[in-house]
């Protein structure tokens, strides 16, 4: 599907008002024109674009009449330029990325006024641009050219910045494990390498932890897919990934990861290192964060992996009693 953006790029950007591009670099006399243009795009009649009026400085010494667009790059050319009395007509075509073709006609009423139309077809769409201009005074054509050059330079800079921003967004999606931003629907159009990076991170402790903790967030991002879907996207089931990560975390003593995600491996460590320890007479420094995280996990899940057997008397307990037991069984005061 042709986007509105690419259509404008194909038609508007490759041709510019010819009067802007002639003459020497230093100060030179010019005619100041007030030019009104109105764009109409076939199939987009419902989208009314108001006429646009701007002042354009056209060099007095020019090989082309005022108001006639001139190709901006080598991919475009004007041909079949004809002049009959006060009427000038031409054809034009562009090849390459912004392929387009069209024609135009301009009628001059003396030296101070013109009106005309330019028709273009690009990406299967037709566009008409109606123009009329009135000379309103004198100007310095070189100054105008400098301004135009500056605008062009600013536009190029903005384009570069936009590209950099996009790269940053894509990299940030990997850093923060936000898969929704890497999807085609996000509009970011991230390079496929970012998806590979995302999947590489998914099988690491850090990446898995970020994804697995997301469901616990107070307000989880609604656009993010669940862990199972990530598993499908990356071709590795979460339970398999977690199994590998837990085994590795056990070997490398990645204690906080064990406390948060690996109850089987964490439970004996908790019994050995946290049980009976008061917070003010703490476990060994190495295990302090482990014990805090394990306590948090117990509180969040409401049960200790070691006391999974149902207790008939539990119905009579208040939640506070359960909490007391859950932590007292393991932790001191």
């Amino acid at each position, binding site marked *: 599907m042709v986007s509105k953006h690419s259509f404008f790029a194909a038609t508007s950007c490759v041709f510019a008002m010819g009067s802007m591009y002639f003459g020497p670099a230093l100060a030179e006399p010019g005619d100041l024109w007030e030019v009104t243009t109105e764009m109409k795009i076939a199939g987009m009649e419902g989208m009314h674009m108001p006429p646009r009026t701007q002042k354009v400085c056209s060099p007095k010494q020019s090989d082309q009449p005022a108001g006639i667009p001139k190709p901006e790059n080598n991919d475009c050319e004007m041909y079949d330029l004809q002049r009959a009395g006060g009427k000038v007509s031409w054809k034009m075509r562009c090849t390459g990325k912004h392929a387009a073709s069209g024609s135009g006609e301009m009628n001059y009423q003396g030296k101070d006024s013109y009106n005309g139309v330019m028709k273009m077809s690009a990406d299967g769409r037709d566009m008409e641009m109606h123009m009329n201009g009135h000379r309103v005074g004198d100007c310095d054509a070189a100054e105008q050219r400098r301004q135009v050059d500056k605008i062009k330079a600013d536009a190029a800079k903005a384009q570069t910045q936009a590209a950099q921003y996009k790269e940053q967004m894509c990299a940030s999606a990997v850093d923060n494990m936000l898969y929704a931003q890497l999807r085609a629907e996000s509009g970011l159009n991230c390079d496929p390498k970012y998806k590979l990076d995302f999947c590489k991170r998914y099988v690491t402790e850090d990446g898995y932890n970020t994804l697995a903790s997301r469901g616990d967030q107070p307000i989880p991002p609604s656009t993010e897919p669940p862990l199972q879907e990530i598993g499908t996207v990356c071709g590795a089931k979460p339970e398999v990934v977690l199994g590998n990560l837990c085994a590795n975390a056990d070997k490398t003593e990645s204690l906080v990861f064990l406390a948060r995600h690996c109850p089987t491996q964490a439970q004996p460590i908790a019994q050995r290192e946290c049980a009976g320890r008061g917070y003010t007479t703490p476990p060994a420094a190495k295990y302090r964060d482990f014990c805090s995280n394990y*306590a948090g996990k117990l509180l969040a899940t409401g049960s200790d992996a070691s006391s999974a057997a149902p207790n008939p008397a539990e119905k009579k307990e208040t939640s506070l009693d359960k909490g007391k037991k859950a932590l007292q069984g393991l932790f001191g005061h």
Partner: protein
Amino acid sequence: MRALKLYPGLLALAINAAFADPTDRFPTAAQAYAVAIDGDIHWGRALDAPLPPASLTKILTALVLLDRNWQPDAVLTVSDRAARAEGTRLGLRKGDRITANDALTATLVRSANDACLALAEHDAGTVERFVVRMNIEAATLGLAHSQFENPCGLDAPSHVSTARDLVTLAGLAMKNPEIARRVGLTTAAVRTLDGRVFSFHNNNALIGRLPGAIGVKSGFTVHAGKCVMAWIERQGKQVTVVLLNSPDRWWTAAGIVEQAFATLPLPSP
């Protein structure tokens, strides 16, 4: 009316049943609790249940003192009533003289009730007049469900606050540099003008132990149970935890804090 004579803790047990809080992620943590991330409460239980706040009260006391012509070098003379304060004390004797600055440090770090009463008496003339100021301040600060009967947090029938109000209070306290500076100390020392020196650890066991814990206060009474309001900052994110009547408050607070930060998308180091 007889029911009003019941301690609010008992009353709150009944009230709790009426609170169906959808964000109760830690149902066994405390009789009432709140977890706020960057000031917004995301998890909680019985957030608006009126419960005795024990010495968390002293945070409001400090705000009242600091908001009103605070003179840190003013000399307080300890009254008989202050010297006989119940609960945790610094050990001040009747007639001892101490600066307001040191008394406030002892109140906030050691949770000393003798220093706390001496400050209240010095500020308002009597404890009762100070309590009036506390309740006006509470209303002004938007602590809608809080009511105070004394400056130091002793149990009293109408001395109540809520987890939600205490989150607000914690935020106000940590914005006050005089309070924030004190409640982040692991140890402190004060002296009377007669030269007696008192050194003590912060009663808030999270300070110096839980990474990022830089305030605010703990409290305990028979009716309030074990309470704590904690302020933790890590990598530009801030978590407040308020626990009221939490049987194992330190591990519970530490565990909740770790859970809270584990769910936050923190910036890469």
